[in-house]
């Protein structure tokens, strides 16, 4: 079976700054890939290229057999790819339940009641059913991020992208979000996670990737990459964050 995400020699620059210089990566269905690297290494940019929040200058990305070229294709890929942001980006003017049902009704054209039932089921799954009728800003950071995960899941995506999902959280709230992600991984969701949470990577990831200066430096299983890396760059980076 073809990989669900195929990234072929992708280049991207912001003005004179080269964010990505020829990244190629294939991710299979059901795989969990963790991307680490110093800030400015292009890891978030790569993630954002997968659902075309960022346009790239060269190369090709094919998601679930659909190349990201036309506007229609981009929209249909976005429907199949859920994204979780560092800053949650919940819609503050909508209650939690409406955050979860909006795209279901507008994009998926589901009936309101079906969307609500689906939303409540997902809120149960992420452990905060009692907050359905609150507004996002009344929730803690960890709860907000779990709502954001539920909101992405409400679209029944085939792939979930996580852009530093725990970086904006207080330390005691990180685990509740990671637990939700771990469960998701166990259920067989294809996940690409930009994160420095080693514990999560060791427990859930099939592969860990180190990026630096817009390129993939090293990829291996988390166990090997974290404890026995071959590249000097990887050793240096790990020595700084551990």
């Amino acid at each position, binding site marked *: 079976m073809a990989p669900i995400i195929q990234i072929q020699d992708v280049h991207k620059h912001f003005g004179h700054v080269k964010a990505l210089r020829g990244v190629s990566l294939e991710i299979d269905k059901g795989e969990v890939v963790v991307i680490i690297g110093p800030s400015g290494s292009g890891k978030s940019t790569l993630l954002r290229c997968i659902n075309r*929040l960022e346009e790239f200058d060269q190369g090709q990305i094919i998601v679930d057999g659909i190349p990201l070229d036309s506007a229609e294709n981009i929209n249909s890929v976005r429907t199949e790819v859920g994204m979780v942001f560092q800053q949650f980006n919940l819609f503050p003017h909508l209650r939690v339940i409406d955050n979860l049902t909006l*795209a279901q009704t507008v994009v998926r054209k589901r009936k309101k009641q079906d969307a609500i039932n689906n939303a409540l089921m997902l809120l149960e799954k992420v452990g905060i059913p009692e907050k359905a009728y609150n507004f996002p800003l009344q929730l803690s950071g960890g709860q907000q991020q779990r709502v954001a995960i539920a909101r992405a899941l409400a679209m029944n995506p085939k792939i979930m992208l996580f852009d530093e999902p725990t970086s904006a959280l207080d330390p005691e709230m990180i685990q509740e979000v990671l637990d939700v992600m771990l469960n998701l991984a166990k259920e067989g969701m294809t996940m690409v996670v930009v994160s420095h949470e080693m514990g999560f990577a060791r427990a859930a990831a099939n592969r860990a990737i180190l990026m630096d200066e817009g390129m993939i430096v090293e990829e291996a299983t988390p166990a090997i990459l974290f404890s026995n890396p071959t590249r000097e760059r990887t050793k240096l980076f790990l020595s700084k964050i551990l």
Partner: protein
Amino acid sequence: MATSQHFQPPPVKTTPKEINEKIKFDRWWFLLMGVILLIIILITFKPDPFRRILFFVSDGISVTIFTTLVSFVLVLIFGLITGLARLSKITIIRGIATVYVEVIRGIPLLVQLMFWYFAFPSVIQSVGQALSIPSLIGYRANPIFMAILGLTFCYSAYMSEVYRAGIQSISRGQMEAARSLGMTFVQSMRYVILPQALRVILPPVGNEFITLLKDSSLVSVVAVADITRRGREFMAANFIPVNTWVMVALLYLVLTLFSARIVNWIEVKTRLER
């Protein structure tokens, strides 16, 4: 699967913060009451000339309100269109909108109104003559129509900047989150960005409304019988300038203070729950 009847919306509670807002809300109504009371006192205890002035000027009140309201509704629509055009990625659309805004903001409203009422019809007539179209040669400007056109054309330029600032104040992440859920640009604007932007811009929009209400007095120079023009007519006939303009000022004050209360009330109503 969880069923919906387990999770009903909690009853709305009145928090101390809301009570506080209601008190504040009331206090400023007293200023409006005070002005209305002053008018009542003046016309009761000094009916000559105040009651005469009020009766003479009163048919201008509806003209002022009508002109302002119709212009404002149009300004809300064209301002939004222009504001979105100013944010467009397409250079030509953005360019046209920017030139429009810059030119209009650079010309006094009074001059613009003069143009629409006096110069524009004559341009139409010349075009009619050149092309020999009889209906255009006999074109006559309708004062109210031209006044509304002039106000709308001018205020839409200002309003577009308010919309633009409001939309830009919403973090990029909101648009990205909406797009990443598969929503189109228009859906994202409609359901995510504009509802938030409208809350942000409500105070400046209210401010624009009140400024428009006051600037509508300029239409008195283009033959629209609004409060100001009726005041001038009364003064010309009776030569009691102080009383006349005190009454006219008080009438505008009632309208503007009332509008300010309404704007404030909408603001409190739509504030985000935190």
